């Protein structure tokens, strides 16, 4: 195997393993704060569920 071959193997494996580690650390760490508060769009959901259908933003106005 050439040096470039090794380089491609190491980078590819590194990217995949790095991504897996990043994801599973964040997934298994319940301490993380949610970035988006569900309350931001709570009102819209309730309106949608009352009608049984999603409400288009234009209709809300």
């Amino acid at each position, binding site marked *: 195997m050439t040096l470039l*071959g090794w380089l491609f193997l190491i980078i590819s*494996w590194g990217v995949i393993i790095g991504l897996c580690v990043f994801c599973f650390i964040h997934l298994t760490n319940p301490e993380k704060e949610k970035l988006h508060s569900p309350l931001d769009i709570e009102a819209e959901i309730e309106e949608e569920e009352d009608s049984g259908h*999603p409400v288009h933003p234009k209709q809300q106005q």
Partner: protein
Amino acid sequence: MKRQREVWATRIGVVLAVAGSAVGLGNFLRFPVQAAENGGGAFMIPYFIAFLLLGIPLCWVEWTMGRYGGRFSHGSAPGIFQAMWRAPIAKYIGAIGIFGPLLIFFYYTYIESWTLGYAFYSITGKLTSLRSREELEAFLRSYQGIAEGSSLLPAYIFFIITFSANFCIIYFGVTRGIERVSRIAMPILAILGVLLAIRVLTLGTPNPEHPDWNVNNALGFMWNPDFSKLKDPQVWLAAAGQIFFTLSVGIGVILTYASYLKRNDDVALSALSSASTNGFMEVIIGGSVVIVASAVFFGNQGAVEVAKSGAFNLGFVTIPLIFSKLFAGWFFCLAWFLLLFFAGVTSSISILQPAISFLEDEFGFSRRRSVALLAGFCFLMSQFSIFGLKVGLVDELDFWGGTFLLVLFGFIEVILFGWVFGIDRGWEELNRGSYIKVPPIFKFIIRYITPLYVGAILVTWFYQNFLDTLLLRSPAYANLPHKYIIILRIVLITFFIGLLVLIRIAWQRHKKMEYTLTEDK
């Protein structure tokens, strides 16, 4: 009155279930062949670009759409599409999200059952007693019932076992069935994969007569980059196609799985986690077993021939042949076929779920009734694959269900999300409850780049394959009797029309129920 739907018990559970759906036979058989044939290490450049611009955005789109639909008690594409787009046609377009996965199920379970059969023959020693390629090829033909005078009985028995196992898991539901099986099967899958990869990577130079047939050169065959291949558009298309198939996007499965999330559950990180788990199984395990082992035992030229012989030959002939030459070969054969079996089961149960969800959510059927109805129908339709393998019916189902509809449905989804539902609303939904901050550039990618990318694949395939396949002009049909393919197509069209009728009935029923409830009030 809204029916109480199940929800996933754990975050890891849903991630493993989606990853299990994505990790299939293609990870171990299709990816290494694609990489070796399309530039080795250089293939990883278009592969990762497609992963970023196509795979990840489509995963996010499907997870977000599914969770959104689940809020309205819809777990299959017709209901989810209707929730996102109020035009009456939306639910009918969503029919593809039930039709496509079932088409795949009709042949996938049969092939999955071969891996169980071969695992059995590994234990009995039958497989390792076959010492030459010719013997193994003859055994495969005999098992498939293609060889003259051979019996389909053993294959049929293993099919019934596999088929029953799939429906048993589905019967236990999302949490007690799918989630539990995924939480057990995925770690086993990873352990078996790592075990096999370590064994292959420590083969050294097994044949002293060919000192250049060694692991180092075999890895070179797989990974040395050939940059000239990057000028070939087919290589970029192959990488995009691989990403599409491997991540289970465009099938409708992720939509259904995500519909069982709670309204504030994370989707951004979960989607990324399942995609990266699939990447681990594909690039690291898949890229270290079949092609590397073939190059160690048959040299680089031999590995080229092996790669060209097709996935079935690779998985069911070459690998048993290689492992039979090793100490405790039966054990490695068993590990290989169990790896494929577990990968198959976690995928096949997922492709049943959209139809189950449709029957439960839209018709209010009980789990038992839904499973019984679907099992009966799938059993009948699977006979086309079992008895029609010789006449090309498996390839026919694979083209429509596993290739064309996948890309078409993915294209519809991304347009619906970015343009009809609206990228701003979609973006807000994606980030809702998210455990990671999705880079804002993806808003642009989802709206413009991904639709163009999927559209380009669709147009190219349409131009290259669709018409020839539709009109039976493709070279693959040259030696096949066309009448069986035409019969299958008529049956499939009838099934699709039937599905449209069912959707109509379901929505008429919804209207009636809404009316009754209003009257009661």
